[in-house]
């Protein structure tokens, strides 16, 4: 059976499963809709958090990104896991004890101010929308690659599915669908990894495999071999990387702190019954996440080695079938600069911009050796190969010569990852509107039934808006997501931490801190990413910090502003100080 038929089968089965769960778990009160009545088992919640957390970017793009970054890929690996330690030790148990529905709820009550609540809502919406756009794009991408459906229809189908279970079931529906989605995505991620690890090194456990010797009889360690290949081709050694140390440091902090400050992650810990459960469920979540995150760097090494040994200095005519299939999707292309018919792989871009295939009368124009020709101008580097990072995971099964059903499984896994994260984000968006804005600010006397209706309507609107961004994407999936972390780090995190650990923190300080932190980070990212991308190089960055890492500086600025402004104004009222005291003890 072809990959496409297998994909239809897997996607069909998993989607019916998600819809089945949606019908079974319809929410009937706001408490069910917002936090699944706070009755989720901690292990279930851990698994749901893992799916909530691991997005299209983690599943589809991360291993590919790492395989091109080498050591530098550690920013994602440590950055997107280390935040859970902060969550477990400094946030989750206290926010659970506080016991309301949302992060703006906490900010609003803790800083006894509607303005603080509004600022928090704006931060939550900015972060969640930035993030959800990337997910919908991921859904469209998988559909178009595997089912040859137009991206537009791919996004529409994804929207319809998310709409069903997020709008009907709310947090309850999302939680149980996420459990199913976690199982699908982790299975889909691990199966090819086991196969490839065994193929290359004889050890099926990828975490050990990439530290083992190659099976090809050369008696050389895989990583040493890869370093050697890299050096021969003129790249930096794989295990040493090329970003500056301070940039690595700042990006890692921004991602860690951003993780701990993401509203859709925090809110998952409102759904368990007790403080004790909140603590342990962060631990479970990180185990489930670590399975994928410790496998991804291994996949990165396997696919990088496979790619280099397959293509470099080989004749185009001897390329395996997958090479020519991916060529036609403009994700893997070869331009014969020196006219020798061999593929030369070297540092630098091979062509200017993304590949544009040269068509005439709807047919691809082939070159001398039968290769797909491109319209793009060539660069002056020796490199003749264009590789899109996203194909490292997508094409992995084919590159390793695995059966068709494995490739189809990867498609279903990518969809599960994108949909589960999108649903979690949509819930935050709808809760922010119906609960934090409508209920808490405009119509405090609204009935529970009405509020639930508003929650559903705003979830519906959020799905539509997310779909729009999916069809008209603002940028690369992974890049957009990285920005959301900077914003979360610079806005929420200091306000929540100070709110818990510093009783005397007052509203004036917290509000000023959040606003300054958010604006600073937005301005810096906007300047380098949107307004003047040509200046987005280390010599123009402040202290050598890239836009991805600037959230760390934003967070520090937020902290300083909060504390300085806080000193000028009076202490918070006694009731608030009592409230802070009470969240510090599980019972009391």
């Amino acid at each position, binding site marked *: 059976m072809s990959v496409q038929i297998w994909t239809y089968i897997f996607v069909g089965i998993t989607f019916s499963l998600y819809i089945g769960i949606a019908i079974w778990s319809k929410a009937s009160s706001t408490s069910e809709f917002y936090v699944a009545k*706070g009755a989720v088992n901690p292990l279930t919640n851990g698994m749901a958090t893992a799916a909530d957390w691991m997005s299209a970017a983690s599943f589809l793009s991360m291993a590919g990104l*790492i395989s091109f970054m080498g*050591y530098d*890929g*550690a920013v994602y*690996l*440590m950055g997107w*896991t*280390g935040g*859970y*330690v*902060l969550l*477990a*030790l*400094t946030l989750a*148990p206290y926010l659970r004890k506080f016991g309301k529905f949302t992060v703006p709820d906490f900010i609003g009550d803790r800083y006894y101010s509607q303005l603080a609540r509004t600022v928090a809502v704006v931060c939550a919406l900015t972060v969640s929308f930035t993030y959800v756009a990337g997910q919908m794009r991921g859904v469209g991408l998988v559909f178009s690659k595997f089912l040859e459906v137009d991206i537009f229809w791919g996004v529409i189908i994804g929207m319809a599915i998310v709409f069903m279970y997020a709008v009907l079931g709310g947090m309850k529906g999302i939680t149980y669908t996420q459990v199913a989605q976690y199982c699908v995505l982790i299975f889909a991620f691990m199966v090819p990894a086991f196969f490839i690890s065994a193929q290359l090194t004889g050890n099926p456990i990828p*975490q050990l495999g*990439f*530290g*083992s*010797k190659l099976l090809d009889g050369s008696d050389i*360690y*895989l*990583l*040493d071999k890869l370093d050697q290949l890299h050096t021969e081709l003129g790249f930096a050694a794989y*295990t*040493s990387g090329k970003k500056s*140390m301070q940039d*690595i*440091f700042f990006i*890692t902090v921004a991602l860690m702190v951003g993780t701990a400050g993401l509203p859709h992650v925090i809110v998952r810990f409102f759904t368990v*019954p*007790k*403080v*004790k459960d909140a*603590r*342990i469920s*962060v*631990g479970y979540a*990180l*185990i489930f996440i*670590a399975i994928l*995150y*410790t496998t991804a*760097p291994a996949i990165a090494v396997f696919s990088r080695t496979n790619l280099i040994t397959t293509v470099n200095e080989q004749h185009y005519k001897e390329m395996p079938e997958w090479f020519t299939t991916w060529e036609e999707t403009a994700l893997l292309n070869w331009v014969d600069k020196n006219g020798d018919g061999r593929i030369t792989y070297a540092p630098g871009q091979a062509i200017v911009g993304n590949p544009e295939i040269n068509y005439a009368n709807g047919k691809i124009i082939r070159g001398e050796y039968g290769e797909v020709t491109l319209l793009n101008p060539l660069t002056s580097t020796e490199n003749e190969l264009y590789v899109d990072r996203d194909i490292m995971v997508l094409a992995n099964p084919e590159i390793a010569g695995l059966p068709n059903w494995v490739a189809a499984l990867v498609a279903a896994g990518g969809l599960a990852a994108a949909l589960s994260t999108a649903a979690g984000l949509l819930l935050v968006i709808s809760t922010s509107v119906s609960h934090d804005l409508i209920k808490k600010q405009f119509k405090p006397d609204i009935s529970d039934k009405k509020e639930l209706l508003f929650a559903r309507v705003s979830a519906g609107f959020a799905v539509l808006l997310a779909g729009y961004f999916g069809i008209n994407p603002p940028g690369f999936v992974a890049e957009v997501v990285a920005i959301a972390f900077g914003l979360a780090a610079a806005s929420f995190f200091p306000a929540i931490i100070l709110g818990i650990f510093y009783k005397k923190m007052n509203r004036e300080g917290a509000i000023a801190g959040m606003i300054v932190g958010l604006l600073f980070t937005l301005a810096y990212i906007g300047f380098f990413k949107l307004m003047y991308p040509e200046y987005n190089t280390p010599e123009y960055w402040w202290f050598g910090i890239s836009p991805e890492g600037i959230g760390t500086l934003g967070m520090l600025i937020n902290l300083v502003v909060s504390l300085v402004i806080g000193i000028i104004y009076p202490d918070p009222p006694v009731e608030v100080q009592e409230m802070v*005291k009470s969240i*510090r*003890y*599980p*019972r*009391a």
Partner: protein
Amino acid sequence: MNDDNLKQYWAINIRYVLILISVWFVVSYGFGILLAPVLNNIQIGGFKLGFWFAQQGSIYIFVILIFVYVYLMNKLDIHFGVEETEEGS
């Protein structure tokens, strides 16, 4: 539950958090980033040590840190009698 007891509970909690966060910082930012070039001179199996901490080791230690904290806090809760009752406090 008197105030002094609660203050003591909170002080011990803060101490646990600070110790565990220091370990968190040392393995990730220390071994994985700042000291990585030095640790890369040591090779265990196919892994250069700094590289291993940055892409594998720190993640395992993160998991362990959370479970250590859970264990310590559950014991502390019971010791100070602030653990939740079955109805969920």
